[in-house]
């Protein structure tokens, strides 16, 4: 037995005796595998008993003896010390048993299956991390399911305890497998290919011929031929043993290692990320400056330092939107382009650029993505005294694909005609393309500004924004407000075209629809670990290709003197997987070797064709 195998057996076979099963180092036991076992592992294609050492560890898939549960402690010596020793052995035995189970191929396979099963509910049930609004809608709809789902973590499957448990166990299993496999592989690299089995005829591919050349010459030539083809070859006894395709295992280990790198990169990204949204109206000089208060909403990972935001900012100069006007996809967006001015660093110069949907702006390690767009009517409100109480563009939020938008105008500093302090609130819709009075619908007909119209109703009272509680700027809390009424008692509401003014009842003031601006919403995100994830994935891909496309195989050439004084040359090959190419390769090698060990005519009746011997 070659040193390699003794080494590796010592590695993988430890404890088997204790567990009640001897370490079986035969080819067929090698297919026990591990999570790191490569795909093509039809290991041990030849019988274990016949091949002996030759077939072993053509992969480094750990040999898996039967880990039989039971008493690991053995004989219990009398006395306290004996009991302690027994307990120690027992505990150690069980722990080792569990570890062997966890790192076994079967459990790894089970965990993989569980992982894919566990990922399913998250794709069917709304997830807080993906769309919190949908989660709320779901909860409102399903009263009985919600508490159950909440207990099971169904609204955040991918950060739930059970899902984490699956993938953490899987990765522990993976590490528990690739570490020993790596050592084993290093051992194989330091050792030599195992010597030839006694009966080469038993191998999956076999050929033989007779030659006049001396056995030593044949072996030397075989060694040269095999080494010339980048086999690791050495002469062991009466045969040359050679092996090739070690990169398969390298690829295999690299792939699984790379998966760990990707997982780490993902974790880093989750823990140190920050992500926030900001809506900016066209021409708004203030724009956005990267500080916490400037964000409309902000999320960050557990370890993100909120005081350490990079200094940069940008503002929206103008926005181009183009929509399909023809055909079945009328109204579908064709182009969104935000022209922005941005600066970077404490005293950075202003630069201009544009942001598109697939082309984010990169500033100071952050990326600014264009998310959506909409309209902001420019509104001027005059109070009862005729003074301007509010002036500005008010972003209305999209309600449907044709950009029917809803919004509110809050006027906190207002005096009525008697000079009494009060607050005003307007609420309503904006449609970029109104269907006209005949259309019987208030909804927009097209997303571009073809026939912009705004419908508003008005309230007075207290907005409730002085209480110090944060309030949604896009919603009007009418609890403490009264709607303006027409003289006939119906609620006051009016349609406005750009340039038109509505006059509130009883001289309460006016609202002028001055014009329309476009707004764009941006996502500013900072996600470390992206490069690491990319490196990990590329390494995984390379490793995967190596482990699936490279064949590992062994070839033996034996040359012994025959009875008639000629030398009998035998060649045989053994593949890790049942490769169709192995016989071809063996034939190739034989042809190459026959240059130095020319075949003699077969004396026996094996080849009735007399030309047979002269060939090759």
């Amino acid at each position, binding site marked *: 037995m070659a040193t390699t195998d003794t080494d590796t057996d010592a590695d993988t076979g430890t404890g088997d005796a204790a567990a009640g099963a001897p370490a079986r180092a035969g080819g067929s036991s090698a*297919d026990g595998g591990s999570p790191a076992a490569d795909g093509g592992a039809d290991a041990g294609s030849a019988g274990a008993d016949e091949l002996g050492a030759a077939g072993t560890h053509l992969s480094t898939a750990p040999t898996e003896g039967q880990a039989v549960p039971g008493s690991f402690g053995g004989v219990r010596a009398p006395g306290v010390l004996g009991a302690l020793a027994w307990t120690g052995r027992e505990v150690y035995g069980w722990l080792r048993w569990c570890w062997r189970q966890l790192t076994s*191929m079967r459990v790894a396979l089970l965990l*993989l299956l569980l992982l894919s099963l566990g990922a399913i509910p998250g794709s069917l049930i709304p997830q807080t991390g993906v769309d919190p609004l949908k989660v709320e809608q779901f909860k409102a709809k399903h009263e009985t399911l919600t508490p159950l789902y909440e207990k099971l973590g169904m609204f955040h499957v991918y950060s739930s305890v059970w899902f984490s448990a699956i993938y953490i166990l899987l990765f522990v299993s993976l590490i528990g497998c690739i570490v020993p496999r790596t050592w084993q592989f290093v051992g194989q690299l330091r050792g030599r290919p195992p010597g030839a089995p006694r009966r080469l005829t038993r*191998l999956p591919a076999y*050929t033989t*011929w007779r030659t006049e050349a001396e056995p030593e010459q044949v072996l030397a030539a075989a060694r040269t031929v095999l080494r010339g083809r980048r086999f690791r070859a050495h002469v062991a006894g009466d045969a040359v043993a050679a092996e090739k395709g070690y990169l398969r295992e390298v690829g295999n280990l690299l792939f699984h290692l790379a998966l760990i790198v990707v997982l780490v990169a993902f974790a880093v990204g989750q823990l140190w990320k920050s992500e926030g949204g900001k809506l900016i109206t066209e021409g708004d000089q203030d724009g956005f400056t990267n500080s916490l208060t400037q964000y409309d909403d902000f999320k960050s990972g557990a370890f993100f330092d909120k005081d350490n935001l990079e200094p940069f900012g940008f503002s929206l100069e103008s926005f181009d939107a183009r929509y399909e006007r023809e055909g079945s996809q009328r109204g579908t967006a*064709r182009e969104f382009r935000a022209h922005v001015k941005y600066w970077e660093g404490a005293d950075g110069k202003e630069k201009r650029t544009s942001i598109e949907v697939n082309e984010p702006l990169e500033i100071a390690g952050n990326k600014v993505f264009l998310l959506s767009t909409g309209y902001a009517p420019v509104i001027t409100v005059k109070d009862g005294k005729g003074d301007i109480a509010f002036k500005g563009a008010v972003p209305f939020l999209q309600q449907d694909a044709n950009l029917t938008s809803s919004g509110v105008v809050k006027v906190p500093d207002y005096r009525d005609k008697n000079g009494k302090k009060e607050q005003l609130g307007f609420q309503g819709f904006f449609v970029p393309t109104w269907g006209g009075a005949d259309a019987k619908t208030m909804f927009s007909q097209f997303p571009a500004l073809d026939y912009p119209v705004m419908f508003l109703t008005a309230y007075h009272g207290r907005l409730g924004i002085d209480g110090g509680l944060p309030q949604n700027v896009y919603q009007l809390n009418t609890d403490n407000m009264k709607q303006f009424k027409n003289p006939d008692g119906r609620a006051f509401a009016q349609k406005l075209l750009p340039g038109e003014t509505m006059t509130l009842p009883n001289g309460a003031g006016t609202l002028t629809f001055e014009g329309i601006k476009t707004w764009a919403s941006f996502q500013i995100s900072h996600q470390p670990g992206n490069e690491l994830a990319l490196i990990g994935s590329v390494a995984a891909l390379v490793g*995967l290709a190596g482990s699936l*496309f490279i064949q590992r195989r062994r070839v033996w050439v034996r040359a012994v003197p025959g009875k008639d004084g000629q030398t009998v040359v035998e060649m045989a090959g053994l593949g890790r997987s049942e490769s169709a190419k192995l016989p071809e390769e*063996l034939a190739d090698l034989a042809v190459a070797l026959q240059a130095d060990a020319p075949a003699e005519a077969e004396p026996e009746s094996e080849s009735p064709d007399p030309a047979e011997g002269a060939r090759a």
Partner: protein
Amino acid sequence: MNLAAAANENLANISNVLIYSAMAVYTLAFIAYITEWVFGSRSKVGRTAAALAPTAGAEKASTVTVQVKQQGGGTAVLERPKVVTRSAPGSRDVPDGPGAAGGTEKGDLYGRIAVSLTVLAALLHVGGVLTRALSVERAPWGNMYEFSITLSMVAVVAYVVLLASGKNVRWIGLPLVTTALLDLGLAVSVLYTDSDQLVPALDSYWLWIHVSCAIVSGAVLYLGAVSTLLFLFRDRYETKLENPDGKQPGAFATSILERLPSAASLDKFAYRINATVFPLWTFTLIAGAIWAEKAWGRYWGWDPKEVWTFITWVAYACYLHARATAGWKGRKAAYLALIAFACFLFNYYGVNMFVTGKHSYAGV
């Protein structure tokens, strides 16, 4: 409407006509394949049964020729030494069936006609996809219709390429053409979308990379899935033949299954396909993540399509691992492969139709 738009409209119409013509020719090919199977059933082959008799499983000797390059550029054909091959212990040493034609001349004639028709239909199909691409002036993968017609095109072209390279794959012709017809039928009826430009979110060169890989993976994995399914039938058939005392396969099952390649060949074919495509599918996943990072600001966001791509990936990983695990080889691994392909199908149709996510474009 300007001139360019009119030209595009024309091209789109030509594309539709070509797709419909391809469907017509596929139907003819379908009929020819059926005829091949029918004529083939008249031959009494019985080779499989004979091979599974207790004496079977002897060593096979094969003599192969090798081309050796000589100095000076010439090549000489040498006879190789005889290489004796042995299959793994425990596996059946069964020869492949004779194919649908069953060795009958008439069956073979119809089989050849079927293959020719398939090639013709594939050409029309390719033409249909190309004109569609020209009419929209971009990669023709902007919606489910375009995705579907390209998917079946790649599957058929892969089949034709395998045939041309001398692989024994004619047996896959009938199921392939049947599903190509189903896929095209679904595409033109349910999924049809007028030729149009892209929504901004899809307007990226990653469309070329990510979607083309997804299509090629799916199409080729389909061939693997068909082979796996047939493996399951053929494997059961061979198992029954192995115990002459047990229940024997019926006449109809025998007629069909004995003409298929051996279970071992089907399994090997399926494995090679799946193992070859798995890295490509991995790349699809990675390319999608890179694109998502560019378009949406995160490379992984648990979007339903992402999740199902991941599930499919893990399912295929399960299959590859199962083949290396004692107790899971063979049938169980094959079931896993079918589950994995079902995941792919759900990812492709189901996610777009039943789940809303970021991968819904142009209606579906």
